[in-house]
């Protein structure tokens, strides 16, 4: 495979697609699929065939278009139209009016902040290409970065490029990616591994899933470039078994890339070989922690071990291992294609590039968004997200899942970057963003996340295993209205203990939702304790009693 071969494939694909007058893209990523997008696609295909337009209309299943709340989404690319909540019955109307572009269906306005304020790098192909066809990816500049890297660049040049780009780990902690690559590349000539962490476990987060479902080749290309840069021969994608569609697309993508010689032995006729395998996670949240993930791949119990040694020195089977998140790898190819300066120009001084967020909860537009770093939370929630529906008041946004914190109104103008979010007690995290309105009780929210951490703790270290359980018991006592001020003091003590003495990130960050709610919503805790009771909890109890009747 040379760059010319790649161009030929891309050109052939473009010609083949140009033959069709109309391109109809149906989102078949998990969100739309769950509301019947596959039936919509089949219905449209059937209609097209029956109308004898098979030579004019190309119907393809594509990845996530972002606005999951309006799914199933169908776009007619040639007319630049986007239809929302499409049903199989709408297919005939859509096909009938395809020439005039006047379909009497629910239009989705794309000239709104939700679409206009986004900047897409990771999701540039998402919703445009067919994730199951490598040719479609190649015709959109796919694998050009890999072929260029192998044929024209040396590994140290690529590492230097990553350092200069300022890319930081998108898994949540924000460790400089270039530095990690450089560490692994300096470990000398030996067996090394590249691992893609796709064990996305935060409640309400679906960024990695969308990337893998919509554009799996982008992740493979990023991994292959990484492997070339650090001198690794084998790679693993650790993806949770709850993502069957992502796994299916990845398997297809690996096979296709191997067939074209873009993965496997002697890639681009060079001495570089790289093999990728998939490992399925069995549903343990802690396996998203890198050392636990490595133990799991090795076939051992998924429990973390103390660092150092870091995986960069001693990782999988004690070999130097580069482990990055899905989104981090998805950023690699564009950086190689467009240069470090291009990437470094996006974002803030210390946080470069864009970040994908899964916007969920009490916000008008729920779905997947990609925004430049440095955008404020207010812009994300009130402009892109379209604000809080049903005339309710904003209360808090939870970023970073069970490891993150709840951010109140007064900090909404804080920019979204690693340092700013840490300053206000939360974390960037992997990209989950759950918006809450006045109908959410913050103590109840803290309890929910503590319950999650307590049941997902691996049980290895004492503070995390039993400390989270003690905290949960206190939070249950508080929400039941049975707690006293002494319990609150004990809760604060446990927060400090678990944060400072736990072995891995799970325990160290488990108190965050409690700490931030105590800090910003202390009055709600007081209300539960004072005997006055929490009006929100009472209402919930009343309505759930009604349901059970």
């Amino acid at each position, binding site marked *: 495979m040379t760059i010319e071969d790649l161009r030929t494939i891309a050109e052939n694909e473009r010609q083949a697609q140009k033959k069709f007058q109309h391109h109809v893209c149906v989102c078949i990523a998990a969100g739309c699929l769950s509301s019947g997008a596959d039936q919509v696609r089949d219905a449209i295909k059937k209609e097209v065939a029956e109308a004898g337009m098979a030579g004019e209309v190309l119907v393809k299943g594509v990845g996530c278009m972002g606005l999951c709340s309006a799914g199933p989404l169908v776009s007619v690319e040639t007319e630049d139209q986007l239809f929302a909540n499409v049903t199989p019955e709408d297919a005939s109307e859509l096909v009938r009016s395809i020439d005039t572009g006047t379909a009497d269906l629910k239009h989705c306005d794309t000239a709104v902040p939700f679409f206009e304020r986004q900047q897409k790098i990771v999701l540039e192909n998402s919703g445009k290409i067919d994730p199951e066809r490598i040719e479609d990816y190649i015709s959109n500049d796919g694998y050009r970065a890999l072929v260029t890297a192998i044929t024209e660049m040396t590994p140290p040049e690529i590492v230097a490029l990553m350092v200069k780009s300022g890319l930081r780990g998108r898994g949540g902690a924000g460790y400089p990616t270039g530095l990690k690559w450089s560490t692994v590349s300096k470990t000398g000539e030996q067996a090394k591994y590249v691992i893609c962490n796709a064990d996305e476990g935060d409640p309400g987060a679906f960024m990695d899933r969308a990337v893998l479902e919509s554009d799996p080749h982008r992740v493979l290309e990023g991994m292959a470039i990484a492997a070339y840069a650090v001198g690794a021969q084998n790679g693993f994608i650790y993806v949770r078994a709850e993502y069957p569609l992502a796994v299916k697309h990845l398997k297809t993508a690996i096979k296709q890339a191997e067939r074209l010689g873009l993965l496997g032995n002697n890639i681009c006729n060079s001495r570089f070989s790289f093999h990728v395998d998939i490992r399925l996670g069995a549903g343990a949240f802690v396996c998203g922690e890198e050392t636990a993930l490595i133990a799991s791949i090795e076939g051992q119990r998924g429990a973390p071990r103390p660092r150092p040694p870091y995986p960069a020195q001693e990782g999988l089977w004690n070999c130097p291992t580069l482990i990055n998140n899905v989104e981090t790898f998805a950023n690699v190819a564009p950086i190689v294609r467009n240069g470090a300066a291009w990437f470094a120009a996006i974002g803030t001084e210390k946080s470069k590039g864009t970040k994908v967020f899964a916007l969920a909860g009490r916000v008008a537009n729920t779905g997947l968004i990609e925004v430049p770093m440095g955008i404020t939370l207010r812009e994300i929630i009130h402009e892109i997200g379209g604000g809080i529906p049903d005339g309710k008041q904003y209360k808090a946004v939870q970023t970073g899942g069970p490891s993150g914190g709840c951010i109140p109104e007064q900090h909404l103008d804080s920019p979204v970057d690693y340092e700013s979010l840490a300053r206000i007690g939360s974390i960037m995290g992997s990209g989950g963003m759950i918006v809450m309105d006045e109908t959410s009780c913050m103590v109840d929210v803290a309890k929910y996340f503590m319950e999650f951490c307590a049941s997902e703790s691996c*049980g290895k270290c004492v*503070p995390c*295993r039993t400390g989270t359980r003690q905290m949960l018991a206190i939070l249950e006592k508080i929400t039941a209205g049975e707690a006293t001020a002494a319990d609150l003091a004990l809760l604060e003590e446990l927060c400090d203990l678990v944060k400072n*003495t736990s072995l891995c990130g799970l325990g160290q960050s488990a108190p965050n939702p409690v700490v931030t709610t105590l800090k910003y919503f202390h009055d709600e805790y007081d209300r539960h304790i004072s005997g006055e009771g929490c009006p929100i909890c009472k209402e919930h109890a009343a309505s759930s009693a009604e349901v059970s009747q």
Partner: protein
Amino acid sequence: MTKAPVRIKTLTIDGREVGAREDQTILDVARENHIFIPTLCDLPGLTAVGACRLCLVEVRGVNRLLPACVTAVAEGMEVSVSSERIDRYRRSILELLFAERNHVCSVCVTNGHCDLQSLALKLGMTHVHFPYQYPRLPVDASHERFVVDHNRCILCTRCVRVCDEIEGAHTWDVMSRGVDCRVITDLAEPWGKSESCTGCGKCVQVCPTGALSEKGKSVAEMSKRRQFLPYLTLMREARR
């Protein structure tokens, strides 16, 4: 063949200057110099896992606490093994352990010979200020010579490691997650039905509490013999 030279690092522990080989941990050096650092999961001769968090120490210039059992020494390191903060954390961790399961010393076979009990005494733990959890846990007496009482287990995994690393049987492992964790034999079969167990009893001897004990022992009668472990390790090193 000439051996690679042994590199020596000097560091201070609680203000005392000590020398160490570069492959030693803070805990190794502290023990050599008779400086006490509390531990429960650690046992010389077994792989350190850093799980009990009792050996956390402060190192100057590092903003988090480090487990002494797995932290390698470094030149010029300044270690404090005790401070008001660490002592408080250690007592709290011990209290959490006492509150987690049903540790009733007065009726325990290892009363008076128990690592957990003696550490609580040594660290000045006067009471448990966390609510007791009182879980209902089983006792497995199916083995002809030994008993496992999950009420007294602290999940230090010494039994798991000694069985895997020294005896080579890997009968023991841990199942489930969080507070539901339990040490199991084979695939959670009764111990007496275990096909991999050789009946060597090493697990019983290394267990820090009364969780693993010999049958026929009454209250306070079960003291553990651990001399075999350094001996075995020494003999194996010599054969290498």
